């Protein structure tokens, strides 16, 4: 105890706050949640990406039957698309038989028709995909590609009748379809989860002291209410960037590189400070967990949603930092959050200073 005496009382309170979390093994639960979400995310990113890739199919791609008057055009379109092989059939019934027997995965029947309201011909295609099979999605994705190729080809053939020739597409390459998802949804989600939990815990720690009546015991100690609140808030604010850092580490172990880690952690810390201060004020003001938590969760959600009115939503800021496309606006937002956090923290201290502890 004697060593503690020389410490700032606020740090002692902060430390006790954290040790109580680890003693209750709550922190184990928190880490478990993180690991769970991390495992889940790698399931999403790695698992689904490999599934999406048609080349991962052992049987060497999807076989598509083509038939009908427009057979030739369809055949060429299929042949031009990666991962699918065309098979020509003489008649529709032969195609259907092959489909039933599972020799082909899908088939296209094409015919030329003249629409009643305009001149010229269109190719009318009936695409048949297997119903409620595990391969359905993959097959439909491929069919879409094939038909888009056909459409492009037909447009170019009829370019004379068009006001504007369609632009050539950049080449097709193998890119993870979940790249953008990872950076715009996953990483912001993982980064903003810890601050919001910290804020919620800040509500708990304040209301619990009030509801249990233990705040009085703390007040007997030679610390002011401001010290108590400072200590509790600091502990919760500090927790969020630590968790955020853990995330970045886990992500990099998963093969997802995150740029600008320092700026991201500053962003996480500032967000944590803002929500924790908000939670503390709500807790002190309402004094009961149920209304305080309810308002905390609803209001933070609304404010976080309303942040879309900013030039850059916080999650976009996090995404741009993580993917290494930050602009001045991005950094401006980070600085803005830090300033806001500092101002709110100072205002809260003044508010707490004026709260009568006896009234709690």
């Amino acid at each position, binding site marked *: 105890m004697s060593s503690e005496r020389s410490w700032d009382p606020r740090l002692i309170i902060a430390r006790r706050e954290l040790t109580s979390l680890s003693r209750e093994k709550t922190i184990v639960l928190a880490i478990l949640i993180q690991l769970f979400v991390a495992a889940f995310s790698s399931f999403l990113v790695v698992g689904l*990406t490999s599934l999406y890739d048609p080349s*991962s199919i052992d049987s060497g791609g999807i076989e598509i039957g083509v038939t009908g008057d427009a057979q030739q055009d369809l055949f060429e379109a299929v042949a031009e698309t990666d991962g699918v092989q065309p098979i020509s059939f003489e008649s529709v019934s032969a195609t259907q038989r092959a489909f039933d027997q599972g020799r082909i995965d899908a088939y296209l029947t094409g015919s030329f028709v003249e629409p009643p309201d305009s001149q*010229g011909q269109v190719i009318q295609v009936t695409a048949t995909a297997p119903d409620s099979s595990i391969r359905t*999605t993959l097959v439909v994705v491929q069919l879409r590609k094939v038909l888009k190729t056909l459409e492009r080809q037909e447009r170019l053939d009829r370019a004379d009748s068009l006001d504007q020739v369609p632009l050539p597409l950049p080449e097709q390459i193998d890119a993870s379809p979940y790249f953008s998802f990872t950076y715009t949804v996953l990483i912001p989600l993982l980064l903003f989860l810890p601050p919001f939990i910290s804020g919620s815990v800040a509500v708990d720690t304040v209301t619990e002291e009030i*509801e249990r009546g233990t705040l009085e015991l703390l007040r007997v100690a030679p610390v002011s209410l401001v010290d108590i609140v400072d200590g509790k808030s600091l502990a919760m604010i500090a927790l969020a960037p630590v968790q955020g850092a853990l995330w970045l580490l886990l992500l990099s172990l998963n093969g997802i590189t995150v740029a600008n880690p320092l700026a991201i952690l500053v962003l996480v810390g500032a967000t944590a400070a803002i929500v924790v201060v908000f939670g503390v004020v709500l807790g002190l003001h309402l004094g009961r967990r149920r209304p305080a*938590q309810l308002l905390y969760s609803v209001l933070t959600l609304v404010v976080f949603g309303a942040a879309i009115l900013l030039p850059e939503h916080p999650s*976009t800021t996090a995404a741009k930092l993580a993917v290494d496309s930050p602009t001045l606006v991005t950094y401006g937002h980070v600085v803005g959050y830090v300033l806001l956090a500092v101002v709110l923290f100072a205002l809260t201290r003044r508010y707490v200073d004026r709260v009568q502890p006896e009234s709690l």
Partner: protein
Amino acid sequence: MNPRKLLRIAKWEVTKNAGGVDKRTVAIMAVSVVAMLLVAGLAASGGATGLDSGLYRVGVDESSPYYAPASEDPAFIVRDPSAEAVERGDQELYFDGTTLRNRLGSQKEKAALSEFRSSVDGYNSEQMREDDNATAAFPVSVTLVYLEQDGVTETVATGGNADGSSGNGGTDGSSGAGGTDGSSGDGGTDGSSGDAGTSDGSTGSGTGSSSDGDSGSLAGLGAGLTGGSTSGTPADIQPPFPFESLVLAFLFIVPMNFVIQAYGSTMLSERLNRRGELLLVSPVSRFDIVAGKTLPYFLGAMGVITAITLGLRFSGLTAGGGPIAILAVLPLALLFLAATFCGAMFARSFKELTFVTVTVTVSLTTYAFVPAIFTDVNPIALISPLTIVVRDLQAQAVTTGDFAFATIPATLSALVLFTLGSGLYREEDMFTQRAIPLKLLDSLSTQIRSKWSALKLPVMLLPAVVVAELAGIALLFALPVEISIPLILVVVVLVEEVAKSLHVYAGFSSGRFDGSLRTTLVVGALSGTGFFLAEKLILVFQVLNPGLSEIPTSQAGLVGSLVPEGVPLALAAVVLLLLPLALHTVTATVSALGARRGRRTYLVALVAAMAIHFAYNFTVVSTVVQ
């Protein structure tokens, strides 16, 4: 149960509870909800930028034809093309005219090009739409038909002609219900089931949905939810990846979160300063108390869900949505409340409760959401009740079997959790700081009356076991079979052995079972038999959802209850009845023998039992699942 007392407690909960929600809070909540709707509306109306805005930098000159598509897509920031910027990593793409000048190295550059490709594609479609020569602009018209591969025509789905589409919006009701006739689901189709696990679809158009300009907005969502687009160009083909189900999941699950926040608080605050003691000493049973205190929150949750469903329906966002959707969310609401109740009984402080609440939300959201991703892959999707909701909202038909399969395990699990939690709703556990493992044992041992309870408890725990195993299957089935089958076996063994032995250990440690060898053997055998009997109930699920047995991962997960095909009847009887019975009895007895002595020996014996079980399952699976 006494309905009158129950209702009175429910009324108190709403009106007189200490720390209740006062009018001011309600008013702020109401304002917040309105604000939330406004924000959502604003975001949807396109007043805000997308999530991926400014993610990639593309260097393209104003004279290039690619300038227009790049500047119209918010995902791209247009820069002056410069090789140095590419070198520095400040530009992902560098176009000279329409030729890409830089070599693509990083993932980001590749993703940028892929995204840009779909951007240009979307831009082309946009341009074509303005062209007055419709046949040249859209020279291909597509109708997409889904057909069962064994010849059973199911019916039409998306697409259709520009004119005839109004008719088939109605007819696609029964598509997707293919699981009903699945008894014939074998033969040629699953000849390839060996690689089915690795090759399944489930992905979709990726996240680069910017190809059609309006996706992401509410209008696009509506078109997607109703399951049919009017025009039939190739760009309109939507792979059956219900991205909307993600949105729906959050729409239904977010309110649940608020309800359990409040519910957890009120349950835990009963335990602070012995507040709940007054009710406990009053002449009502603890079930009345628990049910009475839960009822308002349950009704609240259902009220919100009903409002959301009706709101979706009448605002025209979804084609359907009615009693079926609401009833299908009911088990989820119950499960959320039950898990929170248990959490509030176990938690020692508000802080801990917050973490418990988050855990409940995360795990139940996963349970509800992951299978629902595969809404069009029948057997897996039906593990989650949310799938039923999605289908009902899409105005698809839901069969009774599907409904039962999706909702029964969740409902029963919720009841089990409530029962276990109620076991802790007593003075010794509520007002003391007992360690969590001890409380867990308490909750089980209060259910033990005699040796026969060892038979009863595994039966009681089975719904939770089924839910855990099904959730495991849903999580793992997308992985390659070589990985997913051993993993699911581990999950199954862990879950089942714990479910078979934990109550036995609880019985011994609380002294409800005496520690004699005879009792141990009897209890072990009874527990194994009980689990065996209950496990046979899983057969019911096979009947409800025949498709499940076609997927190797779930075949492995539910091994022992699934009938392998082509096995002679006598052998089938052995495989189905005698062997599993022997297995469960032996493993349960092994762990009971360990449980008799204390915690350490219990853990050792449990691991031994798991090893036996794993060896058995692995042998069976490697012979059955080829």
